């Protein structure tokens, strides 16, 4: 199979043998070990837990470790790999995730205990309460950046907070132990926040964890509209 990889200085082409149950990450690793030792890419767990191997595979952001080649290779037998979109490239397939996580903190992504102190007793949060269910729906995000790379709004406005940061904010807005609700809602309102979302749901469509950041952003819009209007 033909593999085209975006590298510093243009697209490089490699030929790799097709194997059964081969993942895209297997292909990249084989290229680096056998053909291009200076190829830069990022991975850690290889089993879909860490979220570090995300790349654009034939134009779609994916975890390469959980993507079988047979399911994504084009009819022409070509695999095209690029670094995640909407992020600065450090080298080859490695992007700088700093702007992505910087937006998490700008969106108020840190838990702030009520009254500024963590209570001595464990908080009792009924798992079946509607608020807890909303929080649970978004809590499994591992910060891989697939949604961020799939978001049109980020590509139009570099300041836009993006789906992952606002998904995180929404889980905290629904956390009854949290004490920074008002400030967080202010942080996600405005031109760089939830009100710029077009609800095209690229994030929800592509999230490898099956989360719904678009729904979280809609929840923020609703909460702000009825709460602070």
């Amino acid at each position, binding site marked *: 199979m033909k593999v085209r990889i975006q590298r510093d200085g243009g697209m490089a082409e490699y030929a790799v043998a097709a194997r059964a149950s081969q993942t895209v990450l297997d292909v990249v690793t084989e290229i680096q070990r056998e053909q291009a030792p200076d190829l830069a890419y990022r991975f850690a767990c290889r089993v879909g837990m860490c979220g570090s191997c995300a790349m654009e595979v034939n134009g779609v952001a994916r975890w390469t470790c959980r993507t079988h080649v047979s399911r994504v290779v084009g009819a022409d037998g070509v695999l095209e790999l690029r670094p995640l979109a909407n992020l600065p490239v450090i080298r080859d397939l490695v992007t700088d995730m700093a702007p992505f996580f910087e937006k998490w903190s700008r969106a108020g992504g840190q838990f702030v205990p009520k009254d500024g102190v963590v209570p001595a007793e464990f908080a009792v949060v009924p798992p079946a309460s509607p608020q807890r269910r909303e929080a649970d729906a978004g809590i499994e995000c591992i910060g891989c950046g697939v949604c961020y790379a799939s978001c049109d709004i980020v590509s139009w406005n570099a300041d836009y907070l993006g789906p992952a940061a606002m998904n995180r904010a929404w889980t905290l807005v629904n956390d009854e132990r949290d004490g920074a609700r008002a400030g967080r809602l202010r942080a996600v309102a405005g031109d760089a926040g939830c009100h710029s979302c077009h609800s095209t749901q690229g994030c929800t469509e592509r999230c490898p964890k099956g989360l719904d950041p678009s729904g979280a952003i809609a929840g923020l819009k609703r909460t702000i509209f009825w709460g*602070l209007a």
Partner: protein
Amino acid sequence: MRLWAIQRVTAAVLALAVAAHLATILYAVRGGLSAAEILGRTRGAEGWLLFYAVFALAAGLHGAVGLRNVAAEWLGWRGLRWDATWLAIGALTAALGIRAAWGLYHA
């Protein structure tokens, strides 16, 4: 947030207003259209004045907020100066519409 709320509320107003406007046009053109007939309906009619004043205001605001977003996302036109421009365009659109409604009422 305020602009977003304005956009949603004016959209709701426009959905009804445009439907009423179109229905009125369909009704009014039956059997030919004349200026005298239109003026006969609108002259001194507070209901129509109010309807078209609200319609024009909603259209002006909705258009300005929408153009602001489109220009920011597609052309990168952002900042206070552009905001002022869109506000002026929205206010002008609304003012011209309200002036026209007033003209029909007062003619």
